[in-house]
């Protein structure tokens, strides 16, 4: 009798094993395929086509394996359940993202000062070659401002040190804008997104107000704005990386001057050399209904964006990363024209695009994380 019982157990074991091995791939095959994963913020692999070349260089196999895992039945649920399991076992970092009590922050790599020196030298060269006042703002990120919430000893480079080092290395023609104190002292306000690597509109406003004195404008006070909660369902890039659900979704705020927006034209050049696309607002509301909601501010990164306002004031050139997108709207109150250029998307010398001396001021605006890893500022030194 005993032997029979063991056989039944073996049978059940086989049935369990094979039913999983059969149902999951069959379900995967039958379910409709999506083109991209909103959750993970990436396009999904298409079914690869087979040819002698793609087989022998293994591209076909690699793509097919990616295809299978990209479309595997219940993909995001599998990943989420793994995250939940790991965090309940005490793991506090996932995919380069630290999970704090009520926010996600980035695990930033240790700075490479050789690389930073290259950026600094290029900016110094830029400032000495062009007869125009140059301002530089490095914004600390949430990993720095909320570093005290990290688990003890978690690797997290000190951004204050990096910013100090960079500011000390700048030559005479560069005015540094230190917004560290204002971010630090307002850390209990909603100045950084909980699920995204950007600052919030309020964070940008505080920096704009703090920089006014050095840049020569009188910032509008907060009560001169009507704040619109444009979306409260924002799940940003940190969320996509960590797929961690227990942090509250973010709110996207748009600050409208009570006196009315005075923007005449927003020209976005997606490919330099081509004609820009023209818009009449700085807010691209279509993006509020998709995953990447931060792009509601001046769209996704483009090489050149020019904003013409109806306000009086000079011309400003902003060399920037995406932190500038929710910052630039505040500046339109004080400048008649603002041109934002993103060096990451420009492969030719800036001199072929524009002459900085045509502008009254030049502002460099980077967050500390992207500044540390930046390899594009050095292009300013090329001829």
């Amino acid at each position: 009798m005993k032997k029979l019982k063991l056989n039944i157990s073996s049978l059940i074991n086989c049935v369990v094993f094979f039913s999983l091995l059969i149902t999951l791939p069959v379900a995967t095959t039958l379910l409709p395929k999506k083109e991209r994963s909103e959750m993970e913020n990436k396009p999904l692999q298409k079914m690869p086509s087979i040819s002698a070349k793609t087989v022998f260089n293994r591209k076909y196999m690699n793509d097919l394996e990616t295809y299978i895992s990209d479309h595997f039945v219940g993909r995001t649920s599998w990943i989420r359940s793994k995250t939940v399991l790991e965090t309940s076992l005490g793991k506090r970092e996932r995919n380069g993202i630290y999970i704090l009590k009520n926010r996600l922050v980035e695990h930033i790599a240790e700075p490479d000062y050789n690389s930073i020196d290259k950026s600094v030298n290029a900016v110094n060269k830029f400032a000495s070659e062009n007869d125009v006042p140059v301002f530089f703002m490095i914004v600390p990120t949430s990993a720095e401002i909320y570093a005290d919430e990290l688990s003890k000893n978690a690797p997290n480079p000190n951004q204050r040190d990096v910013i100090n080092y960079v500011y000390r290395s700048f030559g005479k023609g560069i005015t540094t804008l230190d917004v560290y104190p204002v971010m630090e002292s307002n850390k209990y306000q909603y100045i950084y997104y909980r699920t995204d690597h950007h600052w919030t509109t309020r964070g940008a406003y505080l920096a704009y107000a703090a920089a006014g004195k050095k840049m020569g404008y009188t910032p509008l006070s907060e009560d001169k704005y009507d704040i619109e909660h444009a979306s409260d369902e924002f799940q940003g890039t940190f969320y996509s990386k960590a797929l961690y659900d227990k942090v509250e979704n973010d709110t996207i705020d748009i600050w409208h001057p009570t006196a009315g927006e005075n923007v005449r034209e927003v020209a976005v050049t997606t490919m330099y050399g081509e004609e820009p696309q023209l818009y009449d607002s700085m807010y691209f509301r279509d993006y509020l209904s998709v995953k990447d909601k931060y792009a509601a501010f001046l769209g996704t990164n483009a090489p050149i964006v020019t904003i013409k306002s109806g306000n009086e004031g000079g011309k400003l050139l902003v060399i920037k990363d995406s932190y500038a997108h929710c910052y630039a709207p505040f500046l339109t109150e004080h400048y008649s024209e603002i041109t934002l250029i993103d060096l990451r998307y420009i492969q030719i010398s800036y001199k072929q695009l524009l002459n900085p001396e045509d502008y009254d001021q030049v502002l460099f605006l980077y967050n500390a994380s992207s500044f540390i890893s930046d390899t594009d500022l050095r292009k300013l030194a090329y001829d």
Partner: protein
Amino acid sequence: MVFSSLTFLYYFLPVVLIVYIFLPNRITVPLGGDRHLVIPARNLLILLSGFFFYAWGEPFYVILMLFSTLIDYTAGRFMAKYDDSPAKRRLCLIVSVCMNVGLLAVFKYSDFIIDTVNVIFRSDITNPVILANRAINDVYNFGLSESRVALPIGISFYTFQSMSYTIDLYLRNIKVQKSFIGFTSYVTLFPQIVAGPIVRYEDVAAELDERTVNINKISEGICFFVKGLAKKVLLANNIGIIWTQIKAMDYREISAATAWIGILAFTFQIYFDFSGYSDMAVGLGKMLGFNFPKNFDHPYLSRSVSEFWRRWHITLGTWFREYVYIPLGGNRKGHGKTIRNLLIVWGLTGLWHGASWNFILWGLYFGVLIVIERLGWGNVLKKLPSVVSGLYTFLIVVFGWVLFDTNTLSDAGQFFKAMFGGNGLGDSTAAYYMASNIVIFLLCIFASTDLFGKLAAAFKKKKGKLYAGVTPAVTAAVLLLCTSYLVDATYNPFLYFRF
């Protein structure tokens, strides 16, 4: 293809297994009259699926495997044909061994040899394999490596397996395999082709011709497979992340505690990675009706270095013992020769793991320690309390892993210096790594002892019914858990593919 991938687990495996289970060993097709065509259906399926499995990862250099198989099969047939001519039999053996060792020399060691020659003679010789790859790429654009020779997957395993056949045939330990499908299915048997265990032909000779597949065997195979999958996906991959990070640090700056955490993480990673792979192979073998030899037996519980090597990668040790150590005279020709033979075997064992001085030194390090144990130290170890001799052996092995997995000898030197406090004892990095990984470390320690096996055996004995009921639940749970890790495979390298 690797076992721990969705492609293997949910596509390749179910298709092959289900077809396999419903096929008979042989299909006899009447050709009219008295003539029949006997198709060894299951062996043919093993051959085709193994070829597909291998070519999936190595679509071009699969030709090397076919070449090697063809030569060894032919050598075997000729050996049988000229059974009464020792000279011709020897010639067959020499052709087979030279061809296999030659393949290894060209595709595994040529870069190392040429680099060494270039350094000594200050020459600038380019590896002919690279020149050939470039020529092929120029015409066909296959994307073959043009800077270093990329080691064809599993070449160290299948050449050794294949040689075990011709050598044993020469030594008259086995009978010739007349069927080409039979012999090729032995080489391409997908559970063991890319990362062992090194199944000798002798081990499976009988099963190649006749084997049974039944529910009990399949279920037993499933248990082995699932255990191996868990070791690889849940333990090795997760603890491996720690070593990947610490390995990348500057060894001139890391504290002793960080260095120890790093190398202990690797100690567990390589064990669970490799033994997990072997368990999966054994399990798959059982599902197909084969009984592969055991490859690991709780090596970290060993009480001497000699014992460690009887418990670690057992099939490799057996291979070198059978085909190198014993033919050289083993321990039967006096102390001097025994020591020489041991050092040859251990130098080769090191070299088998990879073409670099680190590996050769790593092998000789164990060789020397084993010689010392032979000379009397082994008897001392036996008398010591097991905690002491166990700890001694474990530390020796851990120091070995430093040599094994740092990139150069000077890196290894700096790492040793860090381990002994050259850059301070502890720091916040170490505290962070320890605090955030304590659970996985404890799990690994537990799983490398024989405690789990003992508990399971006791449970089975006392509560047979419950045990029988729990088994399928464990299968399902582990499979689901591993699937969630595989879907989220941000980190899934297979360490033993380098060898």
